[in-house]
């Protein structure tokens, strides 16, 4: 007999989430993901001066604020036909990298790991230690991580004035020229963050972590570091709970390209589908609204997309639209980025068990080891005295698109300017992909698929614990999802 259970508010995600579970014999048989809040940024932006988008879009989301700014700046730059000077490009990728890594840190320590500190796990061998370390609010990790994160975010003081909600990212580059002394300070803050990661998260040098190339190599590495750093602690928990076999979605992964500089893109754009690597084609994106509280009778390409709420629409259960790539569901995020980029450890994890809770977390943490050394190099490449920002021409009639990888995955902005003002602005955010509702064919979104078959035994924790692990493994950002 099937029972229905509604989990909400589903907390320790960014923004509001509610998940409805159909449960058969102790397992999830179907899931419906509801993004329960609608603000209407795409409606707000209509009629605004094109550059005003830089004020509004970061405020879609306090945690992906810079990613939103970067996507808008890129879409405007394309519409204007300009590109940023080298310093401006370097400052922009650095700013985005700081946000993305701060988000990875918040996700791991504040949103995801506290679930392993729950009373239900106290009987496990690792239970008491995990509780002392990762307990929400009171765990020892929070006391280590919050000051380290705040220090790391001082990079934003130099690069962006403040975080969240900066206006330093411009279509022409960065409004914040950096002086020699500030570049020295940026280098010192990066080294301080590196030391924190090497001491607390990894118990090893970043370069050694980045080179882990297979599941056996990871196991061997972790066994030598038990209880000395937080990634090995997580791996022991993951092993015991079988998290590498939990939460498989479509195994079709999308990355729109991350950290693009003139010399190349660090994590390239592409689609990885059952062992086949394909190019990313933005023209293959359609947004379906069949199960969304949105008016519309057919899937639309984002550049002609519409956002017209229809609150009492029959059959709808979310404010989220359902984006599809070539009509199919994709997963996006750090796991997708590293699958497309071909990191051997991540590819090996997915080859063995498919996308999983463990693979998502490992891919995310791996990005610290991959990115921080690059950030050090980018900061060193900035030349004081050379320009940071190109002049932006006024727009009358134009259109443009911008694609950015936020911490939690692929973000796209599409804008159209008519008569000098924004005529249409459409946004497809990472969690719009991952937490989409069903489409017209009835195909569930990525999380909805990942939850099917998951153990739904009630441990008295407000929601089945395995369900909580799967949901949070995507690092959802609900305020971006619906915007």
């Amino acid at each position, binding site marked *: 007999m099937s029972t229905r259970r*509604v*989990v*909400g*508010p589903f*907390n*320790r995600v960014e923004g*509001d989430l*509610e998940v*409805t579970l159909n449960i058969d014999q102790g397992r999830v048989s179907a899931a419906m993901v*509801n993004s*329960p*809040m*609608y*603000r*209407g940024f795409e*409606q*707000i932006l*209509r009629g*605004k001066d094109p*550059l005003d988008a*830089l004020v*509004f879009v970061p*405020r879609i*989301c*306090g*945690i992906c604020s810079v990613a939103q700014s970067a996507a808008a700046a890129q879409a405007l730059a394309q519409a204007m036909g300009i590109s940023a000077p080298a310093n401006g490009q370097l400052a922009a990728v650095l700013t985005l990298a700081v946000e993305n890594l701060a988000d990875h840190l*918040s996700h791991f320590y504040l949103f995801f790991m506290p*679930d392993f500190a729950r009373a239900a796990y106290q009987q496990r061998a690792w239970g008491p230690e995990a509780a002392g370390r990762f307990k929400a*609010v*009171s765990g020892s990790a*929070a*006391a280590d991580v919050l*000051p380290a*994160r*705040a220090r790391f*975010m001082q990079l934003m*003081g*130099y690069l*962006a*004035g*403040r*975080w*969240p*909600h*900066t*206006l330093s990212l*411009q279509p*022409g580059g*960065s*409004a*914040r*020229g950096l002086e020699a002394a500030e570049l020295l300070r940026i280098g010192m803050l990066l080294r301080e963050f590196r030391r924190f990661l090497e001491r607390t998260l990894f118990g090893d040098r970043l370069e050694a972590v980045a080179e882990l190339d297979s599941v056996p190599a990871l196991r061997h590495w972790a066994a030598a570091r038990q209880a000395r750093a937080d990634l090995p602690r997580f791996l022991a928990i993951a092993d015991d709970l079988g998290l590498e076999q939990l939460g498989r979605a479509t195994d079709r992964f999308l990355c729109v390209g991350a950290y693009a500089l003139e010399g190349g893109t660090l994590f390239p754009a592409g689609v990885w589908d059952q062992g086949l690597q394909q190019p990313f084609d933005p023209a293959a994106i359609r947004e379906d609204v069949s199960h969304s509280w949105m008016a519309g009778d057919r899937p639309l390409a984002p550049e002609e997309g519409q956002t017209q*709420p229809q*609150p009492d629409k029959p059959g709808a259960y979310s*404010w989220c639209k359902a984006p599809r790539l070539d009509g199919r569901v994709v997963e996006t995020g750090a796991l997708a980025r590293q699958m497309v980029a071909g990191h051997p450890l991540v590819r090996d994890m997915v080859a063995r068990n498919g996308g999983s809770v463990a693979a998502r977390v490992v891919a995310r943490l791996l990005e610290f080891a991959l990115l921080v050394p690059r950030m050090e190099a980018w900061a060193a490449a900035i030349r004081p005295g050379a320009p940071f*920002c190109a*002049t932006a021409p006024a727009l009358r009639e134009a259109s443009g698109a911008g694609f950015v990888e936020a911490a939690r995955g692929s973000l796209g902005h599409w804008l159209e300017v008519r008569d000098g003002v924004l005529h249409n602005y459409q946004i497809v955010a990472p969690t719009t992909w991952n937490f989409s509702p069903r489409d017209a064919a009835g195909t569930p979104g990525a999380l909805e698929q990942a939850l099917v078959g998951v153990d739904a035994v009630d441990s008295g*924790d*407000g*929601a089945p614990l395995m369900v909580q692990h799967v949901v949070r493994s995507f690092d959802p950002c609900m305020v971006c999802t619906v915007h």
Partner: protein
Amino acid sequence: MKEDLNLLWLQSGGCGGCTLSLLNADCSNLFDTLAGIGVRLLWHPSLSEPCGDAARRIFDDCLSGATRLDILCLEGSVLRGPGGSGGFHRNSAGQTMMERIRSLAQVARHTVAVGSCAAFGGITAAGCNPADACGLQFDAEAPGGLLGRDYRSGSGEPVVNIAGCPTHPNWVIETLAAVAADRLDAAALDSFQRPRLYADHLVHHGCTRNEYYEFKASAQKPSDLGCMMEHMGCKGTQAHADCNIRLWNGEGSCTRGGYACIACTDPGFEEPGHPFATTPKFAGIPIALPTDMPKAWFLALASLSKSATPKRVRQNAEADHQVVTPAVKKPRAS
């Protein structure tokens, strides 16, 4: 010893950015800091363990009185639409966040709006205000909002509006500390109910572009070092906040980040009536003058100082780094 105050934090029509900003707090550990000022976190959507049913029980216990609700913080605006139903933020059982906020505000000893959305409606109320967003006790500049002009929390005080988009971490921490110490009475709030501990300053105070301001040496485009008041839409001389006195993320602020102050602590900042990055002018003169500055004097001083602008200041104003550095005094001949 005084008992710790229970704080319940809710989020609605906003971006969560005030919480993320709070995590930037420059202190040994934010949670220790809160404990140190006598505040106990009952529940926060991003930071607390309880999920689903367990979280709802906390709200219910506050409503029934089983748990004392000392401080209710709302981050994000109240979404009244569509048609006053609150349906733009509603769970599948049909319960709206608007009603949850209204009912909890009736039992809260102190009610605090964190950020300009919760205070005044903020960015969510911009444009056609599709979700019919408003603040707890204001709708932009108009008193009212969700709770109405006459609302008073259990302590007898109106809603405390920690306006800002986002809020500075210390504005929030100090306001909570003042509440916990019973030191935040009506006299500690300005006419928009913003804590005067930060709202009695102007963003202009401590601005590193002051020399450019004095000589009206103006930035023409993003990344220029000059004053951003004349062309770039900067409202630092009018905006109530201490952003250039206590800095953001170490050594930052908006003006130090190379861009205009958009007066995000003001009600209605989201609809300035002009493009944000352009200063509206009449006959070449900025329409909005510095706070408390008589127009005639501003014009007289501006024309005098423009004619007296040193070459260094004039040239640097339109560059992204100092192209002329201040002269070094020559040693006196002995």
